[in-house]
């Protein structure tokens, strides 16, 4: 039992936070709970503290509109939280689409699809292009353009307010990640992930690698959704320093040799 806990503790924690947040939001809509009202785009915590998606607020700003104070404060709170502590943890601990793409990834490994599938290559920088484009298009079209197509908002809103054909977006992402491009949505395209990669670039919590313990089994790289951040595995002891790391902790869990663990960022670079 403790072995299962050890192997899956972060995964369990992540599913817990993802589902708990959904339950709180659903409770806010259907039963009038005052804990979390609204949705991931903008919400009220305990009926007083505003929270808002800083990326959505930036898009609104690029339309030329000035948002009211609530959304502004909410966006700053969220941005500061992820910049200092959370890093890109939004993607793995909050975002509901993560459960869909994780399932696709799990089936990929289970069915050995990587061996049989025709491999497509796509740059992981597409997300930054999409993000830049979203600001330009928001400016031209006068509306927050990513929010109109965002499968994240669609899924989250769908679960809280009713799905409509929103499930089609979820199925699309699932199939895309399963059969077309490995880690396609979260690892390549999603501009929100790119946004959090940028603002979480210097956050405090980090995964650290202890090279002498590493036996080069590469289990960590197999489960990592952003495996480019693990470039140091087996080469040198170092913390994961790229903002693209979602801090999901899967690498820490699957490592049998105690070569990876969570820690606080060391600002002085050692061993260089």
């Amino acid at each position, binding site marked *: 039992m403790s072995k299962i806990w050890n192997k899956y503790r972060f995964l369990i924690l992540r599913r817990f936070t993802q589902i708990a947040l959904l339950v709180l939001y659903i409770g806010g809509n259907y039963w009038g709970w005052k804990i979390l009202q609204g949705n991931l785009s903008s919400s009220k915590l305990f009926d007083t503290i505003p929270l808002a998606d800083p990326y959505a607020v930036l898009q609104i700003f690029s339309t030329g509109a*000035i*948002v009211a104070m609530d959304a502004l404060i909410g966006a700053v709170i969220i941005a500061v939280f992820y910049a200092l502590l959370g890093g890109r943890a939004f993607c793995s601990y909050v975002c509901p689409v993560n459960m869909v793409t994780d399932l696709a990834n799990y089936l990929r490994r289970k069915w050995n699809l990587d061996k049989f599938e025709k491999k497509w290559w796509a740059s992981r920088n597409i997300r930054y292009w999409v993000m830049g484009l979203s600001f330009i298009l928001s400016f031209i079209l006068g509306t927050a353009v990513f929010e109109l197509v965002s499968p994240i908002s669609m899924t989250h809103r769908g679960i809280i307010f009713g799905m409509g054909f929103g499930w089609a977006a979820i199925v699309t992402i699932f199939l895309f990640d399963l059969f077309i491009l490995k880690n396609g949505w979260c690892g390549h395209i999603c501009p929100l992930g790119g946004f959090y990669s940028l603002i979480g670039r210097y956050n405090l919590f980090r995964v650290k690698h202890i090279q002498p313990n590493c036996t080069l089994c590469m289990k960590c790289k197999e489960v990592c959704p952003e495996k480019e951040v693990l470039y140091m595995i087996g080469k040198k002891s170092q913390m994961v320093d790229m903002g693209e790391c979602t801090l999901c902790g899967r690498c820490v869990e699957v490592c049998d040799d105690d070569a990876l663990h969570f820690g606080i960022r060391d600002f002085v670079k050692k061993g260089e």
Partner: protein
Amino acid sequence: MDKNRRAFLVSLAQNVAIAATGGFLWSAYVEEAKAAPLILRPPGARKEQDFMSLCIKCGLCVEACPYDTLMLAKPGDNKPLGTPYYIPRNIPCYMCDDIPCVPPCPTGALDIKSVTKEQDGKQVFDITMMRMGVAIVDIKDCIAYWGIQCDACYRACPLLDKAIYMEMRRNERTGKHAKLLPVVDPDYCTGCGLCEHACVTEIAAIKVLPRDVALGKVGNHYVKGWEKSDEARLKGSSGIRTTVTPRSEKSAVESLNEGLNLE
């Protein structure tokens, strides 16, 4: 040309081309999704264009509405995704005195100022200031216009005798009855849709439409001579150019008296 430099430029051009292609597809979709002229917005909503740029699609207005009037557009509703709207025939706006849906809006897409007025030095809500839409009567299908007695919409109106009043007209068919006809005054109508909700016909003969869609505009060159201050609108104007063709240079009287010279 240096090979590396060429490769770099080509890959740069590729990236830009992909981004441009994606951008065009994306903007075409957004333009399409934005085009929903018949959507009715919550109380206090800014003009549709400003509303679309400000709304963050959080649903706080929807959660605040005690009557479940407001909904967030889902995929399949053919409305801008995630934005709040209501269908008065299903659930109208009941015009709560405290307007619970407007204050929670975090971005200001719903403007509190547009539904408040000053009273005794305090800011108070005034629900009659809401302008969500305007009711339009289909006089062919309204049974009151047939001569059958019905005042369902009139009775349902929260601004009875202001937003909807009854006009009396002689029923020429019977020769001895009066028709009582509902007439909407757009100056007072808030677009709540209680009339549309109450209408007895199979498809409502009184419908709420967005004000931009339903209302006309007279233009400045018509002046109500019988209203004292109306002429003041023309103050400082440089006059209206009426000469369009050489023929119209002559005065109207001239052409009537002297006949037209068509050469």
